[in-house]
């Protein structure tokens, strides 16, 4: 339980540093942490990260700006990393298919780095965060519509170094 207390205190610190109005509050985030602990995921695993913090943030078309709702997810990731000190993560940046392949490789890299920079900015040591870009090569959702494209413009935090 020591780690959970640490997470909660970190979340409070992160919330204090944010002035963005209209963000999801910590009250909505904390229950998911409790659920994750209760479900008994293997500590430091991808499943634990996904359940306890959320592993994916989404972007607007041709943008690498971290949205307000993404900031909440990334603060939870930072707290989770603090609670799992041995874990190294790789941020995989992705793009939708509505661009050229090489531009999208660069855009995926830019998105992955935007997430990495945000995490470093809220206290995660940089040497724990790697990045990789998949451009448009690994869509999460198949389809030729805005719903699929939006689901594919993302950065996924993955436990482990680039293999």
């Amino acid at each position, binding site marked *: 339980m020591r780690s959970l207390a640490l997470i909660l205190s970190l979340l409070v610190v992160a919330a204090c540093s944010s002035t963005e109005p209209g963000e999801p509050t910590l009250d909505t985030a904390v229950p998911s942490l409790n659920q994750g602990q209760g479900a008994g995921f293997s500590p430091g695993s991808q499943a634990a990260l996904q359940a306890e913090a959320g592993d994916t943030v989404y972007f607007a078309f041709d943008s690498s700006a971290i949205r307000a709702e993404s900031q909440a997810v990334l603060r939870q990731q930072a707290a989770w990393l603090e609670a799992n000190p041995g874990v190294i993560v790789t941020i995989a940046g992705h793009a939708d298919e509505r*661009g050229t392949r090489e531009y999208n*490789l*660069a855009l995926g890299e830019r998105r992955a780095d935007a997430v990495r920079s945000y995490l470093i900015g809220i206290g995660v040591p940089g040497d724990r965060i790697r990045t990789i870009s998949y451009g448009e090569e690994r*869509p999460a959702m*198949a389809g030729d519509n805005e719903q699929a494209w939006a689901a594919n413009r993302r950065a996924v935090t993955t436990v482990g170094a*680039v293999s």
Partner: protein
Amino acid sequence: MMRIGRRGLLQAAVVTPLATPALAQLTVTIDRGTVRPLPIAVSPFYGADAALQDEGRRIAEVIAADLGSSGLFRTIDPLAYIQSPADLAASGPRFAEWRPINAEALVMGQVSTLAGGERVVDFRLFDVFAGSELRGLRFTGTEAEWRRIAHKIADEIYARITSETGYFDTRIVYVAEDGPETARVKRLAIMDQDGANHSFLTRGDALVLTPRFAPDGTTIAYLTYAYGQPQIALIDTGGNERLLGGFEGMTFSPRFSPDGRLLALTLAEGGNSDLYVYDRRSETRRRLTDGPGIDTSPSFDPTGGQIVFNSDRGGSPQLYVMPSGGGAAQRISFGQGRYGSPAWSPRGDLIAFVNQQGSDFHIGVMRPNGADERLLTRSYMDEGPRFAPNGRVVIFSRTDPQRGRTRLYSIDVTGYNLRELATPLDASDPDWSPLRR
């Protein structure tokens, strides 16, 4: 006499004309958007026995398919031919028997063997209405080289009629795609430009993208995910691979300089993508761009002095030209929408690109100064234009979401003659080899 081919056996020599050499020109003008294809008869090549006759028929079929695929020729069905291959070989053409089937040009030839089993293939091209001979050549090669000999003959005919260099004795490297959209398996594949002699260069265990031929036609640079950090590797047509080492970030978008000595590429560091030129001999690099925007997809002009590339430094992806030794970049794209994937024609006169407007993708061409922009295609997604070595034809990939397929297409730079290239699987990221020597 030119010596070509790995074993140096494929050779060409001029043969003595059978008919009066041409004075008048039988030509096809290909600078307009539409052409009247030239009706041409390609007689099965004569052989002294059944096996050689079969080979001669196959050679004629490859020649006819090449010429027909250019859109500049209309090949006449051999069933309509009156004069037989044997009679052609014995007596030369009787033009009065070719005029009634409206053949304006006639190709005839003969296949024979040397003591060592090598093939000797003669061909002659005639202007039927003038009754004159336009070209005659003799090729010598191995039995296995019959397709290359046919392509070389087609190149000679194309060159003689159009006054442009041919592009049929060439290869296409591309990425073969297989599996569901969310977990595509991608392999490098290589084939002759007509789809023959297809083979895979990688096994599909790692993601590979954007293969690009070196000017030698046998070395290919591409992006591989096989070694963790995505990076550029070189592979030869025998499958031997090595990494382009020494970069601390992701490298991608490789393009060779026209002399093959340099590779322009993109290096991503800290989320920022910039252009570099890598010297293959000294294994040193020079940084070309340095800014917070994305700079990628470089392509050399045929002199090697200039590079066109894709950048969002102005707020959206556009095309820019800069000296390959470094210096100021000039924006050249000013039409509607977003631009990417520029490719400088080997002739130097055009730059092909992808243009994205709303829900449509286009392949287009413009002058290197940005003038005379023309969109050649329109679809859900057209990507990755690259030129044939004569600069007349652009190859690209098209995704059709209704049919759930991505395939290679070619189109003349005039916007005429859109054709799908047959591939065994889905296909993307094509690159066209130089004319083989």
